[in-house]
């Protein structure tokens, strides 16, 4: 989870991940996590590799992927920004934050900004309930995020892109 994955699809890498994990009892979720951590999402091609390895149909694998909010089948932006929508954050202003975030980024939940910097996702509780509203970027949690703090976070993500290039 902590190392950012790379989106370029490499079937041999995926196969190695599957081979390493497939003999675990109940291996499907660990495999899906490992694939998404490595490639940032779960491409259709991965499903074609996972299904025979676990003696499942592709439909069964797809059914599991689509059941869980965490798994995605399309490539996200360079950063996934999750805003907590749950009650404890609502009581601290999360509804206003959500509205601001969507307007500022020009996207709705599950969408990616035009410059591919940010994919916006809802999350139901990050366990930071005494110091909300809470936002997760990668594996980092941020506390007390109001509109201004959100803009600073997003600016930092954009700046980070400039530094990389």
């Amino acid at each position, binding site marked *: 989870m902590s190392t950012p994955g790379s989106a370029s699809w490499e079937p041999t890498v995926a196969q190695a991940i599957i081979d390493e994990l497939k003999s675990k009892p109940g291996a499907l979720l660990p495999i899906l996590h490992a694939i998404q951590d490595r490639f940032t999402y779960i491409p259709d091609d991965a499903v074609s590799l996972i299904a025979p390895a676990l003696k499942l149909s592709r439909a069964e694998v797809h059914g599991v992927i689509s059941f869980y909010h965490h798994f995605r089948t399309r490539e996200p932006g360079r950063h996934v920004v999750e805003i907590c929508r749950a009650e404890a954050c*609502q*009581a601290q202003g999360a509804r206003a934050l959500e509205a601001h975030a969507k307007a500022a980024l020009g996207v709705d939940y599950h969408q990616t900004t035009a410059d591919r910097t940010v994919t916006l996702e809802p999350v139901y*509780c990050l366990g930071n309930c*005494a110091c909300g509203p809470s936002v997760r970027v990668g594996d980092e949690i941020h506390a007390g995020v109001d509109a201004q703090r959100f803009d600073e976070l997003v600016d930092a993500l954009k700046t980070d892109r400039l530094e990389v290039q």
Partner: protein
Amino acid sequence: MAYRVYVPSDTTAKALGADRLAASIDALAHEMGDPLEIRRNGTRALYWLEPLIEVDTPEGRYGFGPVKERDLESLFAVEFWKGEVDHPLALGLVEEIPYLKRQQRLTFARAGVIDPLSLDDYKAHGGYRGLDNALALEPQVIVDAVKESGLRGRGGAAFPTGIKWQTVLNAPADQKYIVCNADEGDSGTFADRLVMECDPFMLIEGMTIAGLAVGATQGYIYLRSEYPLAQKNLNAAIETAYANNLLGENILGSGQRFDLEVRLGAGAYICGEETSLLESLEGKRGLVRAKPPLPAIVGLFGKPTVVNNVLSLAAVPFILDRGAKAYADCGMGRSRGTLPFQLAGNVKQGGLVELAFGPTLRELMFEFGGGTRNGRALRAVQVGGPLGAYLPESQWDTPLDYEAFAKIGAVLGHGGVVMFDDTVDMGEQARFSMEFCVAESCGKCTPCRIGSTRGVEVIDRIRAGENVEGNLELLSDLCETMVDGSLCAMGGMTPFPVQSAMKHFGEDFVKHTSDAQALAEEA
């Protein structure tokens, strides 16, 4: 000799800048020739004081908080590491802070005190004494101790833990499992996270004892993916436990085996329901199973399985170390031991409050919580997560125990207390409860899957002023259908917050209409 300084390291402390603070303190200390040794503790979970820096002195640990980077210059100027110094952020001895002093920390005795990943720290503070005792006992004796302690499942349902263990012990099988439910999805709760981030060996020890008690050799911690730091700390602690023969094929030379692995969930609230969790662990969609058979008889991979919440398992080392009686001596009525309450939402002094059952909700919210953070009037409180009722002021004097809450149609659940001020729109909150159920229903049973969608629609119509009386009646009826007809607590309890909002805050549903009277009659 260097002075020892503690900088907390749990998710909330980090979210408030504790890592940067630790680095800055280290850099400043380095300039001065390193008079300080920086250690990372978990957190005391007095969250309005985080980051709460502590320094070791012969009299005890002195605290400073909440510390921002801009405070460091003045803290260094008064040589804060000496403890009793004059500074606006000085809190005195940490354990004398009333919020902490008035608690009965059994499960959380070590939280914020020790380095979470130090096995030596854990042992120096009573860790692994429970396992030592358990290794010398017959399984039945361990199960009896848990029964006598009166421990009830801390996940929300409050089922007696010892009875569950007895069922698994009695079930003949070649393989049994211990599964820890660490899918702490309830908003307003973070006690499980605190255990895993601040005292992970306690959970490992508890699960190992559970394995010995029922004859299970494999354990799984099913952890939600929203807790990356808990995952990191658990994995590190498990590795250390293996390296020290506290897990594996020959625990402390006893010839007994217990293996443990962390498995990550994937953002599905329903997987906190135990049968859904088991399906997910098996690599499937998290569809709820019909009960019976109970997981204790037919659980993970069809084998007898103990499924316990983090806090239930975390209470076990104490019981095996200090005795069932020491645990049972806390509490009231049939609610024995302590329950860690979590104060969240719009609260001035949020954090973890571990208490023997008994004080009232009002005492918790005001004497510990200090009221709302923004100083506005407190209006509604949701206790027990997103499936818990919203309580109006007339119910705040209810004592905090399972039975007293059940009597008023509410639940204590996992002990989360989310406070809302008077700007809250309870019609919107009721709508959210249904919307949450739409997003998180596993889809297996109709009342939950379809009922929640219809619930959102009906509430929207009421709020828009469409045929208010008729739609309120429809909503009441829908809620009853969901309560009576759903397969599990997701659909069965989603109506609790909705019904309580209608009953106690009915005016909010119709405030955009002139039909304010209708709801009062309906409720």
